[in-house]
């Protein structure tokens, strides 16, 4: 199939082509489409750039390895976010265990947020950067059950239905968790959101 044709296909069509013909180009296009949204999601969840790159790469390896597991009854985005979410949670638990046995342990408030220099935009003021750091720290303080739906909804912009499929919970539960998560976030960032 011609390059241009592949680019115009949906995610679901691409993964089916990859399944049937083992077309590596279809897989490459999927990587291109999802690498940044996934790294954004995992970074906001873990707060560690190096770990999040590994998690996203492992996510794509899983897609490559278990491509035949995917069934077109679900959206491809839901499937890949589910994989990334599970791997991110595993990584988070692993890091938590390592942190528990670490001798020189800093408190959460002291830990600097790791954002690469090349990610900083010149148009952003220092005030904004400071605010971003505060929000990221607050996100990491949230419990996983609230953090995950808030990131997926408010940062990634997914629908409630998609989040419900990714987290395997009811839509109502998603809504209530997002609501509680936002409330907790606002409480943690009360010095920014005074009113």
């Amino acid at each position, binding site marked *: 199939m011609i390059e241009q044709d592949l680019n115009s296909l949906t995610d679901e069509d691409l993964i089916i082509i990859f399944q049937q013909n083992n077309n590596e180009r279809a897989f490459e296009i999927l990587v291109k489409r999802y690498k940044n949204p996934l790294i954004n999601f995992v970074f906001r969840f873990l707060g560690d750039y190096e770990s999040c790159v590994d998690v996203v790469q492992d996510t794509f390896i899983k897609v490559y390895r278990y491509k035949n597991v995917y069934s077109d009854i679900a959206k491809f985005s839901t499937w890949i976010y589910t994989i990334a979410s599970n791997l991110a949670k595993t990584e988070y638990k692993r890091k938590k265990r390592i942190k528990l046995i670490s001798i020189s342990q800093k408190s959460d408030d002291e830990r600097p947020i790791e954002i690469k220099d090349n990610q900083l935009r010149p148009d952003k003021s220092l005030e904004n950067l400071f605010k971003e750091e505060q*929000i990221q720290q607050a996100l990491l303080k949230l419990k996983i059950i609230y953090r995950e739906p808030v990131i997926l909804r408010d940062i990634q912009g997914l629908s409630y239905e998609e989040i419900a499929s990714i987290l395997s919970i009811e839509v109502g539960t998603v809504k209530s968790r997002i609501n509680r998560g936002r409330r907790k976030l606002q409480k943690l960032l009360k010095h920014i959101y005074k009113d």
Partner: protein
Amino acid sequence: MEEKKFEKLVNDLKNLSKIETPDNFEFLLQNKINNFIEKEFPETRRNFNLIPIFAFTSIIVILFLIFQPSDEYVDPLQIEPQMREDLIVYDEDLSISAFSEIINDSFIESDTSPQNFKNNQESYTNKIIETENNVSNIKNITISKEELNFVKPLLSEEEIKKVQALKKKILSDMN
């Protein structure tokens, strides 16, 4: 109502800096995938590679066994048949009865007058002795390999002469 309450926060969350993958992301991913493939399927690949080698070796061994070169080559068509001693049966009664028939024949053919009776008796006695000797000779006959495949009558010289005389007679009658 709830949405309005968190409007600012939601807005800030949406406008957070977009994190991007490093430049070598695809390259690293490709390396990881290649490593995974090598780890996951080394056995299968090795086995597939060995299949033609195994097949080739097996064919060579089979061909070697079939067409094995040997210095002690013997043409199977030139081999002499082995003697099967279990099939050589000597029937003593049959031989004796055959000779007694010959003796009886000579009695019928001979002169039976009283004058010659004594002479005949002696000659008959001699014949019997001779016959017994013949029988003992026959008993001692060993069958050679050449005789295994042919029906060869065992005749004494006298009998051969008789047979030849009969042959001549038949031929002369026919002429």
